[in-house]
């Protein structure tokens, strides 16, 4: 894939110039819902915590998200879904990552997600789900503990 080639080039340039690579996180809004307050707050909080954050903007298809994740060479994808489409859209992204041999990119998420759906999502490969009331610090800590910098 073209995306893989871009990744290799970028990593080598970081190794030369910076020495230490920051964690790169794609914050994504899949589906049709426009509720981006949470996604933007998370994006900002992760950036303030020293990560490189790419925000996709709204109304992304799973294909667009996976393509952006590979192009941008991210370590993880954080998705926010408020529309109730989580049982469709999270698994769609994970399957596409597997199909693109990019399953090392971890997927976590949040939004309006009933407790009963969380085990289903985890079983499908979502690494963590943050529900309303989770603090941005909880999410930063979880990323620092669970997302290895892949360089």
């Amino acid at each position, binding site marked *: 894939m073209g995306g893989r080639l871009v990744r290799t080039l970028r990593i080598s340039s970081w190794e030369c110039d910076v020495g230490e690579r920051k964690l790169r996180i794609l*914050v994504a809004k899949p*589906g*049709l*819902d*426009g*509720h*981006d*307050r949470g*996604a*933007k*707050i998370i*994006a*900002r*909080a992760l950036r303030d915590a020293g990560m490189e*954050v*790419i*925000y*996709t*903007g*709204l*109304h992304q*298809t799973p294909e667009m998200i996976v393509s952006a994740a590979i192009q941008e060479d991210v370590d993880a994808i954080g998705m926010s879904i408020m*529309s*109730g*489409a*989580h*049982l*469709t*859209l999270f698994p*769609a992204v994970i399957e596409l990552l597997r199909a693109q041999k990019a399953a090392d990119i971890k997927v976590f998420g949040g939004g*309006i997600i*009933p*407790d*009963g759906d969380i085990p289903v999502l985890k079983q499908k490969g979502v690494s963590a789900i943050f*529900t*309303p*009331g989770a*603090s*941005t*610090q909880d999410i930063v800590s979880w990323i620092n503990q669970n997302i290895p910098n892949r360089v």
Partner: protein
Amino acid sequence: MARSRARSKPKKVKVVSRKSARAAKPLPKGKAAKSKRAAAKPAKAPKVDAGLRRWESQTLGPALAKLPTRRPAFTTDSGIPIPALATAAHRTSTEADLGFPGEYPFTRGVQPTMYRSRLWTMRQFAGFGTPADTNKRFKYLISQGVTGLSTAFDMPALMGYDADHSMSRGEVGKEGVAISTLKDFEILFEGIALDQVTTSMTINASAIVALCMYIAVAEKQGVPMAKLGGTIQNDMLKEYIAQKEWIVPPRPAVRIVVDMIEYCTKHMPKWHPVSISGYHIREAGATAVQELAFTLADGIGYVEECVKRGLKVDDFAPRLSFFWDVHNDFFEEVAKFRAARRIWAKTMKERFGAKDPRSMTLRTHAQTAGVSLTAQQPYNNVVRTSLQALAAVLGGTQSLHTNSLDETYALPTEDAVTIALRTQQLIAHESGVDRVVDPLAGSYFVEYLTDETEKRANDYIRRIDELGGIIRAVEEQYPQKEIGESAYRFQREVEQGDRLIVGVNAFKADKQTPMELLHIDERVQNEQIDRLKQVKAQRDQTKVDAALAKVEAACRGTDNLMPPVLEAVKAYATLGEVSDVFRKVWGAYREGGVF
């Protein structure tokens, strides 16, 4: 952003120094020095100052020495400083600014008698699953005493996609009722006489399609459009600012809105063609002042566009309506409703030369703040909603939706909706607040907050005028960035414990409350796709193609879009097909990923 902060800061200091600094409370670092200086030379001495000074030195000072205030300074959620004691001296408005209910500038209410003659409309927003599911909920709500219907549409309908579009995967019927064709509307309103109810429809980018479907269903019931009462939200500017459900870019979107206002002005005298909405702006993170300012700026934008179209202000302005959020800060919310009416009245009279008092009255729907509900200890949401609903009523709303306690998890169950409706009925029939007009008028504090809210909102409106008007400001993402800042600040306050939210960062409970939730399954999507296929197989394709060609011609020209869209939906053209014409002519809108 930086500019606006620079503008508001000195102002804040000024107010603190003139008013509350005299209360001899410790002030935050940096402000204290300036405030002391200002307090040392009182410029104007309002009439009660002597008494207030005496109280401050003889009574307040010693009391504070024994027991200081819990915080160095208090402000409203919008950051308006709250004095140690509000007095008549804090008011900056005149008696004429206050006026009488039912008269300019309508600060005290749009009706002379308010709820003494007619209670507010109890309008519960409902929509989920298939049109038949929602029709059943509508009938339940009517049986329980709601006095107006309010329709929530699903995300595909709001974004102009049919149920079978690839973008609709997993979304059909989830956040509202699924609608693709007139057939769905026929099922949605089956058995509900459309000349007996008023209906509100929360739909914007594809509002023109929904309104035409409603007109077509009514016609089938034998009800002419002139008799239809209700509201279609149709406020596109706030979509770009906050709710973010769009099809095409702002300018063509506003053109469609103006087409609808023009058409309704001529043919639907009882219909509100736009509900200028602060709700979504607030939910996206705006403060009360920002909600007020950006919403009124949107209203000004529509009036300007209608006037450019050649419409006379007094012909269309009486049909404009508004929609506020009601959040937690009780007095600030009441003040917001009052300030909103005054600003709008003055704007319509002074800026647009309106002569008809109805053009100057700001009539509003209100909804309690969804964003204030917590997933933790969800029964507390009933209490939050009650307080917010009471603020809306004391603020003089015309219509109200109360949120259900389970809405941080899912769309509400029937039981949860019933408690929400009962909350309004309790306020209306048991609390006694319905018996008096504008009961908080004359409260030193509420009048002070009303004046301050008005001033601060007007500052924002001036800033937007300087940017070249609201459409330009939206294109430059000015309101969007201001709201983003406020949302981030709020989150930080919560996380730092400066702001306590019961059950979330204080008074936490170990055990989870089990909740029964409404689930929407795949059946809905499958049923909708099947019905869509059936409709497409049965319709006259030649008629559909011809009607859609007329829609395209109107988009490319200047003819009003309502007649060709009405013809198209009557021929069973789908919501997605009409929206595709818009996308073809004007291009699909995309927002950059700025955060």
